[in-house]
């Protein structure tokens, strides 16, 4: 008998959710995580005495308690979590901000509709038609033919600026593709952001992760941290288990991997997925349903979209500086470019998040402004390599405008490594280039952190630091290796709620619904 019914690679949102489902129904399951904390792309860390979330700006897919048939309600039932346990607080309002035009939106879709009517009066009928088409599309139908989103959107929206303003948040929060999105992914993101909306727990992502870990442990699931999988073992065309970084082997009936499509292929070595996935992407025989993209043929793997994220701690709430929005998706150019930049970072567009502007019941511990920009992994990877962490005591400085005596003293110790010099440079650019959209917060910055595509690669193992994984998604989860399934980002559902639902549905489909043994 195998050691486990199922081995799950990765303790991110998808791996934990899958683990809960399996443990709940008495499957012998282990979650293996290479990092020393769980959470994956959406984890948390301590930095100079402050608690930061890695990713979380907002949880998309907000649904009030008792709402029916929405992704969040589905997730809660599948994991048997009560709505109030999530401790969610809704956004105030957010905005898409382009040169000379701004569209506000909130968890009430009517706000956005009214804003479109105000700013683009001739487009509002088209916008209504687009919303209807989105509402009626069943994004869960895995057999729907693949199509690009832009042509569909252009049937309804004829103003290219409005088109880009609609795409901007949807791409930033969930597109692994450059320039366009798959239509079904567009629908998923449109519903999750514009129809459903944003919320977050007072304590951020650690609260969600703690709930998941508690559920998993209570159901009897086993979690091994600092336990990387170096190889997926196969017998002929069947996955039989894994080999760990320390050489130990574990056997299982089923392996669910959240490491990514290409990354999982590599783990199979030459005998398994690797030639299939890394080599011959176009072949339908390889994997039973990959989404293909028509724009420019088969895109190269891994995904090209990585990000930098700057975190600035302010000495006062953003509201006190007149910044009211919860999240702003901005572009400084009229046409928005969602593509890998030629430079290290493209600061001409991005996302600005003020986590303190959710309707939180209590003041947050820190007043933060977080800025996300698209970045080029290869350029960051090529920067000087001497050590990953800066020497103790050194680190990023607030932008020059914000230098006070203490930070000026700290700044003296910053090592002149190319990587850190680049970080400092791009931190300052990133802050300077949002000032068309929010008040100048730089004089109020007391502490700064920043992560780069390299950070993402280092902590989550995703090739190319690709936050949304490969542009190729494997909707059924089924690979050409029997008993090996892809969950999470590269199965096609991403974000916190999406990834968790991915883990749940794959665990249901490939483990729990597998021919049940007759009743005892």
């Amino acid at each position, binding site marked *: 008998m195998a050691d486990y019914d199922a081995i799950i690679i990765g303790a991110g949102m998808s791996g934990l959710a899958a683990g809960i489902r399996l443990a709940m*129904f008495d499957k012998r399951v282990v979650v293996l995580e290479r990092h020393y904390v769980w959470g994956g792309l959406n984890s948390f860390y301590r930095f100079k005495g402050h608690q930061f979330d890695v990713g979380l700006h907002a949880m998309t897919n907000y649904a009030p308690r008792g709402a029916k048939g929405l992704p969040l309600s589905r997730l809660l039932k599948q994991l048997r979590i009560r709505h109030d346990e999530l401790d969610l607080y809704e956004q105030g309002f957010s905005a898409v901000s382009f040169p000379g035009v701004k569209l506000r939106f909130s968890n009430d879709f009517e706000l956005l509709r009214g804003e479109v009517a105000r700013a683009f009066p001739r487009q509002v009928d088209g916008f209504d038609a687009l919303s209807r088409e989105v509402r009626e599309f069943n994004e869960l139908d895995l057999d729907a033919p693949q199509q690009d989103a832009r042509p569909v959107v252009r049937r309804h929206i004829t103003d290219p600026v409005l088109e880009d303003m609609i795409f901007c948040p949807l791409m930033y929060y969930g597109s692994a593709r450059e320039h366009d999105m798959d239509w079904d992914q567009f629908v998923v993101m449109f519903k999750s952001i514009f129809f459903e909306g944003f919320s977050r727990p007072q304590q951020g992502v650690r609260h969600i992760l703690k709930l998941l870990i508690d559920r998993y442990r209570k159901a009897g699931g086993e979690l091994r941290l600092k336990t990387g999988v170096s190889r997926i073992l196969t017998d002929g065309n069947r996955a039989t288990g894994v080999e760990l970084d320390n050489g130990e082997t574990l056997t299982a009936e089923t392996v669910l991997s959240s490491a990514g499509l290409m990354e999982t292929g590599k783990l199979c070595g030459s005998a398994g997925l690797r030639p299939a996935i890394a080599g011959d992407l176009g072949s339908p025989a390889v994997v039973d349903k990959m989404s293909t993209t028509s724009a420019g043929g088969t895109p190269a793997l891994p995904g090209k979209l990585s990000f930098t994220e700057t975190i600035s701690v302010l000495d006062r709430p953003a509201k006190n500086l007149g910044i009211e929005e919860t999240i702003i998706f901005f572009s400084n150019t009229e046409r928005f470019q969602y593509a890998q930049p030629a430079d290290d970072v493209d600061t001409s567009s991005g996302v600005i998040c003020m986590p303190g502007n959710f309707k939180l019941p209590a003041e947050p511990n820190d007043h933060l402004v977080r800025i996300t920009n698209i970045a080029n992994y290869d350029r960051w990877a090529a920067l000087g390599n001497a050590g990953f962490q800066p020497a103790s005591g050194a680190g990023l400085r607030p932008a020059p405008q914000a230098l006070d005596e203490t930070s000026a003293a700290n700044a003296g110790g910053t090592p002149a490594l190319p990587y850190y010099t680049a970080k400092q440079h791009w931190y300052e650019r990133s802050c300077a280039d949002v000032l068309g959209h929010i008040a100048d917060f730089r004089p109020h910055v007391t502490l700064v952190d920043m992560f780069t595509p390299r950070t993402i690669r280092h902590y989550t193992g995703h090739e190319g630091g690709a936050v949304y994984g490969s542009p190729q998604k494997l909707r059924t989860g089924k690979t050409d290796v029997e008993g090996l399934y892809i969950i999470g980002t590269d199965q096609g559902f991403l974000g916190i709620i999406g990834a968790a639902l991915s883990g749940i549905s794959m665990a249901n489909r490939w483990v729990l619904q597998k021919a049940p043994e007759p*009743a005892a």
Partner: protein
Amino acid sequence: MTDDNIKQAIIGIIADIAPDEDTSNIDPAVRLRDQMDLDSMDFLDIVMELRKRYGVHVPDTDYQHLATLDSCVEYLRDKMAGKQLVS
């Protein structure tokens, strides 16, 4: 197990699956789906809980018999005979 016990067994399972639902006023003659936010994933859970708690196996083809509380009782009466209610 009495018919009432069977109803309680099902309601107990639903209360665990959907902790936000009010299970105190379920009409036994009306489809469960129409009274509560239950989808096919949730019916899978009801079936799996029946197996886990009572050792009762419900094949895919019989899911339709779980549509209402009354139909559950009809369908499960023989299968649950002699079992103890698990809370």
